């Protein structure tokens, strides 16, 4: 699980990929590496030519999610995502992690006729959550992105996010927080079949039910961080080597 080495905490900042790291060091240190000889540049000044260099170096990574959409509105706060009474469940405990998933979005008002997780079920049938503005506002609790991921959601496509939710999503790797450029929540309905394709340079949401396609803002450097957290194969078996990522590092596959 990669955390804290977030290349892109603010989705509204322009995102370009960092320069490629050609050979990872032979071990990981739990400490941070301070390249005080060269001050890390802010993301916006990194050249886009490094993007091309990287894609030449290794095959283009493409991530695809396909499934049903669940559509919500604006300002879905963390209490609607996971009501506070369920916060006694500790996410790092596997049994309780699963239970958290069963309560995902249970706080939505009765006006939402379709429940995200059917009563009695542990998992959701919806892979993609479509939201409006300020998704995930409210509490800093990780239980919010965790319960969505535990329930089986793969990605959220929203117009904008609250910062703590976005950060926690990346840190935990539970769901991909993707930004749409238009109000997708007005054009999609719960139950629509959709595909989210994450590609370098352009990512899209394809609604197969309506036939419409929507451009998404690139996940940028947050992508590999989420991958490291969500892909069990990239998890380090050795507990001595933490999975935390350092700044400027692209993780395609952890080789340790």
């Amino acid at each position: 699980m990669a955390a804290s080495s977030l290349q892109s905490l603010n989705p509204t900042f322009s995102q370009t990929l960092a320069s490629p790291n050609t050979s990872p060091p032979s071990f990981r240190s739990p400490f941070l590496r301070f390249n005080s000889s060269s001050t890390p540049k802010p993301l916006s000044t990194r050249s886009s030519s490094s993007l091309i260099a990287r894609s030449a170096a290794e095959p283009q990574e493409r991530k695809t999610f396909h499934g049903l959409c669940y559509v919500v509105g604006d300002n879905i706060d963390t209490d609607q995502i996971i009501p506070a009474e369920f916060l006694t469940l500790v996410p790092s405990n596997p049994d309780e992690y699963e239970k958290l998933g069963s309560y995902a979005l249970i706080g939505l008002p009765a006006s939402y006729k379709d429940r995200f997780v059917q009563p009695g079920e542990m998992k959701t049938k919806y892979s993609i959550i479509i939201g409006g503005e300020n998704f995930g506002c409210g509490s800093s609790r990780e239980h919010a992105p965790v319960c969505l991921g535990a329930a089986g959601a793969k990605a959220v496509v929203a117009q904008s996010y609250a910062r703590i939710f976005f950060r926690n999503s990346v840190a935990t790797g539970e769901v991909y927080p993707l930004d749409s450029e238009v109000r997708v929540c007005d054009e999609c309905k719960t139950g629509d079949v959709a595909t989210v394709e994450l590609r370098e340079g352009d990512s899209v949401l394809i609604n197969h039910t309506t036939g419409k396609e929507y451009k998404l803002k690139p996940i940028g450097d947050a992508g590999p961080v989420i991958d490291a957290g969500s892909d069990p194969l990239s998890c380090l078996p050795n507990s001595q080597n933490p999975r935390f990522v350092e700044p400027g590092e692209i993780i395609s596959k952890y080789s340790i």
Partner: protein
Amino acid sequence: MASSVISSSPFVCKSPAKGQKDLGFSSFRKPSQISIHGCQRKSISRKIVSVMAPQRSSSTSGSVKTGMTMTEKILAKAAEKSQVVPGDNIWVNVDVLMTHDVCGPGAFGIFKREFGDNAKVVLNLAIKILSLLAFSLIVIVTSTLKVWDSEKIVVIPDHYIFTTDKRANRNVDIMREHCREQNIKYFYDITDLGDFRANPDYKGVCHVALAQEGHCRPGEVLLGTDSHTCTAGAFGQFATGIGNTDAGFVLGTGKILLKVPPTMRFILDGEMPSYLQAKDLILQIIGEISVAGATYKTMEFSGTTIESLTMEERMTLCNMVVEAGGKNGVIPPDATTFNYVENRTSVPFQPVYSDANASFVADYRFDVSKLEPVVAKPHSPDNRALARECKDVKIDRVYIGSCTGGKTEDFMAAAKLFHAAGKQVKVPTFLVPATQKVWMDVYALPVPGAGGKTCAQIFEEAGCDTPTSPSCGACLGGPADTYARLNEPQVCVSTTNRNFPGRMGHKEGQIYLASPYTAAASALTGHVTDPREFLQ
């Protein structure tokens, strides 16, 4: 559009008692051009002027040092850099990490998993030394060196305490085990749930306890696994909420990766009317900029009104910064701050102030003398309305408590209004002191102008419920047996911080966020009521 430009009153920086290096001051210059940042605002008020400061260009390549805001300075110092600009991703040294019963088990669980079973949290000077090295290679010695500092972590059980919920009780036990194992110095434990007073270490609501126990100091970086950690910004420090994973990382390393936020400045001038409180100010602001108006930004509060506020009022103001989406809130420290802090800690601190030539991404000014008591109607903290315009709203209960509105001065204010009115409440009125200390103040301190009566006496005479055991209580609903939880679709006026659907329990509950004065006034009439009905 109407805009009243108030004649410039520069923020005068008073010379504090203790060593303060950087006596920068931020004088508000009248810009030659005013451009209204229209897209952020829903309605234009005559009482304020919103100005968009010109975007400054990055000066990272220049030799001229750019002025920095308070937040930029605090983060630069914590990252051991001489200069940062908004947008920079930097590694920041953490001074204090706070966690509680809800997120502590998760944070420590992640820490243990990531840093090894035998990891211990101890002070590691190597980190400081190595950060000076030009080369970045660091050798692992043994797993016991995956450490940070057992004296910089503050564990405060406060959320689900006085409940029979077994998991909630277990979480406090889990924290006890972690603290024992890691030798955590500050663990405000509770073992006897039947009588909070039998627990000498127990404090209560984390954000109030942090302040009362002297963990908040100007110039520092304080993180907490709770969104209202931003409360501590009242002390002129960088304070924000983080999740379990980030906290787990901090536990192991004492550092966090942060993106430097740009600062929105809010200048509040004018004499605070006797019926107005900090809660009204922040609800006014959130209503102005919306629940996402400050997303990823710092909210810096200054002006003559701010200078006149007590520490607890400043805490109320910064507490709800997160409700506007803000990353952190900050208030320039002054004599009031130093007085409070120096009475509670001997740890030295270094206050910082925004440079005169710092850049702000937005400027808002308020003439506070013209403001009126407001509420946030269901179901959003930015659903602002004048209290007097809601007088037809019938209510079922009143809740006075939480980090936002459950401090000593909040109860004093409510008591003052009850005393002035001399009437009985018409609806159940729940009182939840934030901490043990607040509870004791409620029972011991005489209310000014009440002939020696304490808050508790006045509350009893007014027919309020007996002040209950201190904790976060029903602010966020909680387990089913939480005191004052909204278990039915009722209307509640509350001094808490959020009113999204289901916040206090029942999904159809209607919560009106208000100041303690407004809450007390509403209790007396059984309707949402402007406190001027009883205070003038």
